[in-house]
């Protein structure tokens, strides 16, 4: 390996991961964990926009696209919430503190949060789709005067699968913030809402003409949520979705994430509903 060059900023290659250390692993639910990473060698982390993602590489196992779920104003660390659903995600959440993870990115388009200044921000999250929306909430709460009402509508499968419970409880107490949580299947001890996330709309006091809606979750949930928002009077270009497809490179070379004419990795993952609407109903696109 004599001929190999150690990567430096001078020979930047978007395919080359940078080493980070695991600072903390927090169990959110039975299968979901939040990882906090810090750059090694005193290197800073690249700033990110809410909604962007990184490629996280586990030595010898593989690489995954994971949305950044942390606070964009915290420049020293990168935070990811990962649901363990397969070999690669499993190995990612099983890292111990101090271990190394390779990070590429941040990649992709973020939520157009600055367009929401002076308007209400409506966050509609389903399941693990809450992760890429959490940075939006941090941004709004840090700059409370810049934005109107913050409405957080969050659906999960069951009460056991709710993420960020402590923060949800804290956000309820913030000014001009409405937090509504629902589950698909409530146990008998659950005293919250039961039903899909769209059933929360009627409680949300939405002001469609002066709001931006950001939704992330299972594709079918976003499809119904966006359609319902449109029925309520939201303009299509004021509704944003974060899409998911298989990704290998994150920079438009590998071809995997194509969605009609779009590359989810570089044209997205955040798209306005007016662009997505014609594609969402195409089966096996």
């Amino acid at each position, binding site marked *: *390996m004599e*001929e*190999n*060059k*150690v*990567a430096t900023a001078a*020979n930047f*290659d*978007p*395919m*080359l*991961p*940078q*080493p980070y*250390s695991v600072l903390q692993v927090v169990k959110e639910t039975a299968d979901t964990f939040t990882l906090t990473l810090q750059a*090694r060698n005193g290197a800073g982390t690249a700033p990110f926009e809410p909604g962007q993602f990184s490629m996280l*590489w586990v*030595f*010898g*196992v*593989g*690489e995954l696209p994971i949305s950044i779920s942390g606070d964009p104003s915290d420049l020293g660390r990168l935070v990811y919430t990962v*649901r363990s*659903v*397969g070999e690669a*995600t499993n190995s990612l959440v099983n890292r111990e503190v*101090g*271990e*190394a993870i*390779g990070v590429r990115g941040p990649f992709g388009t973020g939520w157009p949060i600055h367009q929401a200044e002076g308007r209400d921000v409506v966050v509609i999250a389903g399941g693990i789709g809450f992760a890429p929306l959490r940075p939006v909430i941090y941004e709004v709460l840090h700059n409370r005067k810049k934005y109107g009402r913050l409405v957080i509508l969050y659906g999960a499968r069951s009460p056991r699968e709710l993420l960020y419970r402590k923060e949800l409880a804290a956000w309820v107490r913030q000014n001009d913030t409405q937090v509504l949580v629902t589950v698909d299947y409530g146990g008998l001890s659950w005293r919250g809402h039961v039903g899909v996330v769209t059933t929360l709309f009627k409680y949300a006091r939405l002001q469609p003409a002066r709001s931006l809606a950001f939704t992330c979750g299972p594709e079918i949930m976003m499809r119904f949520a966006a359609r319902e928002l449109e029925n309520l009077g939201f303009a299509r270009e004021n509704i944003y979705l974060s899409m*998911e*497809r*298989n990704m*290998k*490179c994150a*920079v*438009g*070379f*590998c*071809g*995997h994430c*194509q969605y*009609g*004419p779009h*590359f989810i990795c*570089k044209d997205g993952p955040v798209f306005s509903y007016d662009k997505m609407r014609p594609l969402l109903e*195409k*089966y*096996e*696109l």
Partner: protein
Amino acid sequence: MDGASVAERSLLTLQQLEHLILVLHRRGYEVIGPLVRDGAIVYDVVDRLSDLPAGWTDEQEAGRYRLQRRNDGALFGYVVGPQSWKKYLHPGEVRLLAAERHGQTLRILNNETTPPRRAFLGVRACELAAIAVQDRVLLGDRYRDSVYASRREGIFIVAVNCTQAAPTCFCTSMGTGPRVRSGYDLALTELVGPDKHEFVVEAGSEAGAEVSRELARATAAEDVCQQADAAVERAASQIKRRMDTTNIRELLYSNFDHPRWDNVAQRCLTCANCTMVCPTCFCTTVEDVSDITGTHAQRWRKWDSCFTQNFSYIHGGSVRSSGKSRYRQWMTHKLASWIDQFGSSGCVGCGRCISWCPVGIDITEEVRAIRESTTSSKESGHGNS
């Protein structure tokens, strides 16, 4: 015909062409050209003119490729084989990185070594178009693919005008051939007869002109140039396969649910041959390997195909689980969404996907089937069947 270049065309003998390889070697190029291997004409390192497939041609049809003897000694008397130059520019397997782990320390090493400077000998018009297409995909955006960029940079291209066509060719429909137009350093037109074997050569770049000047040369006489042009015209007139590309993007986008996709899915084996032989298909996957001690790991990038089940896998299952959806993705991407993404068609009309399809699926026929079924009787006279 590009009138301006006529006067600059010169003539090379067979011996002088041998000299071309020497000149390229002297300039530090590894020369890659056609040669016969495993019953096909493939691209690999050539050291001398005798490595080239003199006297061979390829007989092609849907699902068929055979080498045949010619009754002359033409060096470029074949059309296109299963390989294309992406073998060198966008390799089938390349190591992206190597890494070492000791305890909690991790060293990630960029694995890219400087590839040799290469000269490509025998690049066809459709292949030049394919290289231009891959340039737009891998160099033309926010990010540059460093693997491709380092191989592409400084390539010396000796193009060859086709003087015969295969029944699978449809470059005339795609506007890419058979005459080379740009993107080359030197372009050859081979003239071979009972008592002569010579090459009309024209330079397409300053580097090409320099090399051309180094070769012993004579200006090609008017009648020789006319013979060369006629030979290319003859190839053009041999091309019978057509693809009507009028509004093809809208045609395919609006026929997402066309029953023809079910029809083609019944024949398609989803074997991925078409994507492997296609000179513009660029999709890749990444594989991680590590040694048994767990201290060394590597990441390899390999060609992938949208015909595989795993290609569109996200947790829970594949987005395109049916063969129908995968064929539709390949063809719609190639001919329609490619235009949105990169400003041109992804198809250059080389016909490889037709020849190398084990069941003989013909992309031009699939387009025609969709177009004709959706064209009103009034318009059907404009078809090209």
